């Protein structure tokens, strides 16, 4: 606090001192969270990076094997299948979830009657037990007795998809449930973001003769940019790491049609006790996440500029 009082004094401090002061204050804000984070999360994560170059199996020593894991990875067709499936899931899940949750947030930000109820309802999928979610959706997708195919049949579609029981349709099915489940979560974040847009901007835009679409395009979207950026990063990383949803819906099947990287990591580690190899798959997943995030950062910065 003494430092800031000094800052307030009329004479401008030397640049070096100001820098040091800023650093100290900055650190004082960050440290309470960062210390806990560094000790409890960063250290094990660094250990993981080391382990990815070893043959660690939890019980024994971790012998350094250099790039052996990496070479194995390149020739591991299951890994490539999992990678392809993960990218498929992410590539569809992220844009669809973001678009729909934004639309939902806009809808629920209005003064429709009963909007409070709908807001609560929209959040329910995220809260409902995932076991129940999987059970109900799997029943809906049931090829013979499920309501979805019964509807399709009633609509005259002769050969409705097999959904979770078919290798072609299992991933779309999982994505549908993934979007449905995550909608409420991101809707809430968009809703919070919408509140930060000053109402005056809308009034000004209206006065300038902007229509609904133009207001959305020129006021809402730019105003939401920090939120959108946050959501796109979190949603992308979350999709690349998707795990429990797949596990309860299809367990990666039929065959390997919905096997994703996180699940493959779990299989290699906890089921087959090849933690060294599992660690190197994690590092690859990590690198993918980081590069996608970096791209998002750059795009975001360019838009802001």
């Amino acid at each position, binding site marked *: 606090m003494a430092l800031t009082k000094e800052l307030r004094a009329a004479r401008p401090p030397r640049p070096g001192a100001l820098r040091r002061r800023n650093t100290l204050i900055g650190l004082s*804000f960050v440290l309470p969270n*960062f210390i806990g984070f560094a000790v409890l999360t960063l250290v094990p994560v660094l250990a993981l990076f080391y382990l990815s170059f070893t043959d660690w199996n939890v019980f024994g020593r971790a012998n350094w094997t250099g790039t052996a894991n990496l070479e194995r990875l390149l020739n591991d067709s299951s890994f490539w299948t999992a990678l392809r499936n993960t990218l498929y899931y992410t590539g569809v899940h992220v844009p669809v979830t973001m678009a729909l949750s934004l639309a939902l947030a806009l809808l629920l930000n*209005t003064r429709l009657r009963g909007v409070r109820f709908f807001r609560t309802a929209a959040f329910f999928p995220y809260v409902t037990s995932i076991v*129940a979610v999987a059970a109900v959706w799997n029943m809906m997708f049931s090829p013979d007795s499920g309501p979805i195919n019964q509807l399709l049949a009633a609509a005259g579609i002769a050969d409705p998809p097999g959904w979770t029981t078919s290798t072609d349709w299992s991933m779309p099915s999982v994505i549908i449930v993934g979007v449905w489940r995550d909608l409420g979560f991101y809707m809430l974040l968009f809703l919070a973001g919408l509140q930060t847009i000053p109402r005056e901007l809308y009034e000004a835009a209206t006065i300038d003769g902007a229509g609904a679409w133009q207001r959305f395009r020129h006021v809402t979207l730019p105003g939401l940019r920090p939120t959108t950026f946050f959501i796109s990063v979190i949603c992308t990383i979350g999709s690349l790491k998707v795990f429990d949803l797949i596990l309860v819906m299809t367990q990666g099947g039929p065959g390997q049609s919905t096997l994703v990287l996180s699940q493959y990591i779990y299989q290699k580690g906890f089921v087959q006790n090849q933690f060294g190899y599992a660690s190197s798959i994690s590092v690859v997943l990590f690198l993918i996440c980081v590069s996608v995030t970096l791209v998002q950062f750059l795009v975001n910065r360019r838009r802001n500029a």
Partner: protein
Amino acid sequence: MSLTDTRVTPDLRTPAAAGPGRRISFWRVLGYIALTVAAIGVLAPFFWMVLSSLKTNNNVFTVPIRWVPDWQFGNYVDIWTKSDMLTWVKNTLILSVVITFLQVLTGSFAAYGFSRLRWPGRDVLFLAYLATIAVPWQAYMIPQFILFSKLNLSNTLWAMVALQAFGAFGVFLMKQFYETVPEELSEAARLDGLSEYGIWRRIMLPLSIPAIASLTLLTFVNVWNDYLGPLIYLRDPDLWTIQIGLKTFIGQYNAQYALIMTGSVLSVLPIAIVFALGQKYFVQGIATTGIKG
């Protein structure tokens, strides 16, 4: 659209609310239809959960789905008398409240340091935060567990607090919201003699209420529903949370689905209440707090 819009509809934040006369009713009707369809789709699994909690075990999963319960209200008695539901609720509540409080407090505090102050190493540290979100937990779960065991943390509620209170999610979320607050506000406050801590406390916090509200709710829900964390760290039955406790209804070859669904229904209710009560804070924006940029 004409000038009259501003007079007729004071709430102009979204396109759906705008438009006079006939257009309003058109959009409204469309909105209601969309919302009703969505609500049915969204609530169906929850409805099924409630139904299942009123069935006997062997009637939970049938072909076709039975949308009629057996009215087995006994499940709602059994879960309190035959299991330790009370302990589980208590532990879950303690963890959710403590972790949410710490996460929101330290997260929003750290976010200020990351968004409003310039200092060397800031971006590197922030990237370290972000990067760890990108590592799947099941990959470093074991190293972390060994570390916690060496710190004598495992098998205590503290383990869960330590595990979840210092996440990157909250920091990132709050940082993004602080960036929407105009820098001029802080400048003015500095000129008025407020310290950085004062600015955080008096300007940033009040202005980011919707963000804090959503962070609070999301953290609360995540802790409330967390399964893998307690599974690894909380072994003593006295420490179990609801999600872990419900798993004791699953044996090696058998599962008591009706009781699991009963417990799941009970565990959703508090969150629904928290949400219903707290939702006015999600839609309370800058404009309504009376401070203008």
